[in-house]
């Protein structure tokens, strides 16, 4: 007996309908207990950056990626680490668990959470934080990051709302970050998010982020694409923004593609190739802050994996300070 229609799990929304954007979440999943990996030191002068080019693990990429692991990467670079979304893998069995285990056994793992709602208006879900800790420990996660935003009211909305850039919000967010770091027994990294509205700000985005990082003593996940998206949507200088970030706190970086609606509006889709301005900004971040491990995020409208590996090669050239536009050479380990 079969169902009329099997569940087709979403990665991509149908193209071409307005702002429709691929899902930030995908059905991936869970965990095989294993020994935590040795924790690397936050990049600093004269230390080796352990991982430079990373790729976000997605359900839609798993099958093709497994094939490449078995057949070899040819002249394309193998990702040096993966980034997983805990909420897409926690507590699941079956193929999800099998696929996650396959990749966590083969790669250093970074984790990028979605549902913590660190800036949320209601109580932190500490039971969820405890489950997160189990996941991070079981997968040997090296860096755990979340979004400097909120995604809840009295329930989950599963997407990112902007925290008002106010002193009250800095205080509230910092208090919550400290509680989470205390419970997770690790420093976390917060990502500068793309935002499309900012109710009643008292300070700039850069001031808000710097205040939070400093007062909560946490790290930054610098999302280069979001810097570009916000700089266009809100009319600021993206290079000056990056220069204003505290370099020593940058744990790692994201790059991704976006959807250009007009010359003054961009939607952060993660559904296209990385654009030239974002590559240029990555190079600027590399020159300003030094090289950092960087993850390519792709959440929909998936091209063949070889296309993403081509972008990883490009990323490697930039992080390595070598010439761009000569795809095919895997980057060497980078030293700062």
């Amino acid at each position, binding site marked *: 007996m079969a169902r009329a229609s099997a569940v087709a799990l979403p990665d991509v929304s149908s193209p071409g309908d307005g702002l429709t954007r691929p899902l930030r979440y995908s059905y991936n999943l869970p965990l095989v207990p294993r020994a935590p990996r040795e924790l690397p030191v936050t990049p600093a002068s004269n230390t080796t950056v352990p991982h430079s080019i990373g790729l976000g693990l997605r359900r839609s990429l798993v099958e093709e990626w497994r094939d490449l692991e078995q057949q070899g990467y040819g002249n394309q670079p193998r990702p040096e680490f993966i980034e997983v979304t805990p909420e897409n893998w926690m507590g699941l*069995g079956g193929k999800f668990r099998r696929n996650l*285990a396959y990749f966590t056994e083969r790669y250093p793992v970074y984790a990028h959470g979605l549902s913590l709602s660190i800036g949320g208006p209601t109580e932190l879900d500490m039971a969820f934080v405890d489950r997160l800790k189990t996941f991070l420990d079981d997968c040997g996660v090296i860096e755990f990051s979340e979004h400097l935003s909120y995604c809840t009211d009295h329930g989950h909305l599963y997407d990112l709302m902007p925290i008002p850039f106010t002193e009250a919000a800095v205080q509230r967010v910092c208090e919550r970050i400290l509680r989470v770091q205390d419970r997770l027994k690790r420093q976390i990294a917060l990502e500068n998010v793309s935002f499309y509205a900012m109710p009643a700000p008292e300070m700039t985005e850069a001031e808000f982020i710097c205040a939070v990082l400093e007062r909560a003593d946490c790290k930054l996940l610098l999302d280069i694409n979001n810097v570009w998206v916000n700089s266009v949507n809100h009319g600021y200088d993206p290079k000056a923004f990056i220069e204003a970030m505290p370099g020593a706190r940058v744990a790692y970086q994201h790059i991704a593609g976006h959807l250009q609606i007009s010359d003054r509006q961009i939607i952060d889709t993660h559904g296209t190739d990385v654009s030239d301005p974002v590559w240029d900004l990555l190079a600027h971040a590399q020159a300003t802050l030094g090289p950092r491990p960087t993850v390519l995020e792709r959440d929909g409208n998936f091209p063949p994996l070889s296309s993403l590996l081509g972008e990883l090669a490009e990323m490697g050239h930039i992080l390595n300070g070598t010439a761009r536009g000569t795809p095919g050479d895997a980057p060497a380990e980078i030293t700062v």
Partner: protein
Amino acid sequence: MQSQQELQEMQLAFAAAIRDPDLDTHFPNVSPEQLAVYRELFWDNLKALLDSACPVARDVLGQDTWNMLLGRFWKEHPASTPEYTRMPFEFADWIAGQNLEDGGLPLWLAELIRWEVAELGAMFAPESKDAPPTGSDISATHIAPSLQLHAFAWPVHRIGKNWQPSSPETTCLACYRTAELDIAFMELTPLGTALLELLLAEPEAGLAGATRQLADAMGTDATALETSMAPFIDDLYERGVLGNTHRKGGMEHSPAIDTSENP
């Protein structure tokens, strides 16, 4: 300067404005167009998930009714799971609590959606933490943790765009993960369903215990019942829905314990 209370109120109002596009809320420094971007992004995110989790319900209801239903859910239901992929279960629970008749919706809708998300339940179910019964414990029977067992009032598995039931018809359905980790479906008799429900409620009593209980409830002889159900039970073992170490094709072939990736 903003107070903590003002911050909280503004954040809740912002979320409420995203949930309900009819709310005419204004925020300082935010244009209606900017708010509309959020409404559209969040709505698309919700819709992509529930469209894919419930393709039959969406098809049968048609886009307008389906969207109206999702809109009400989005506005009224504060989802409690941090895991987005589990949200369809909350949708199924929510719709089960709605008065379908008053809403002009088909009476079988809640059961159809429950059956559609059961497939996700079978896909997501974690492997059992308990070891399958071993040694002398031959009475214990292991049930695949992925088993989703449902007794419905309507034949939901036959519902599609071209056919909907006009009267109820007791329908017992199950789905589970196979040894290959794919999802398989079964239609069961009410008797078989009752036996599995007893087994799920009291696994330590084992198959023999469940059969005795069922025979008592029916006022029949346990041995006769066991004989008549033997083909069904054998089929369940064959499929790996049931398992123990003393049956051919026991748990080593069961989807319940995934040993393929464990070191």
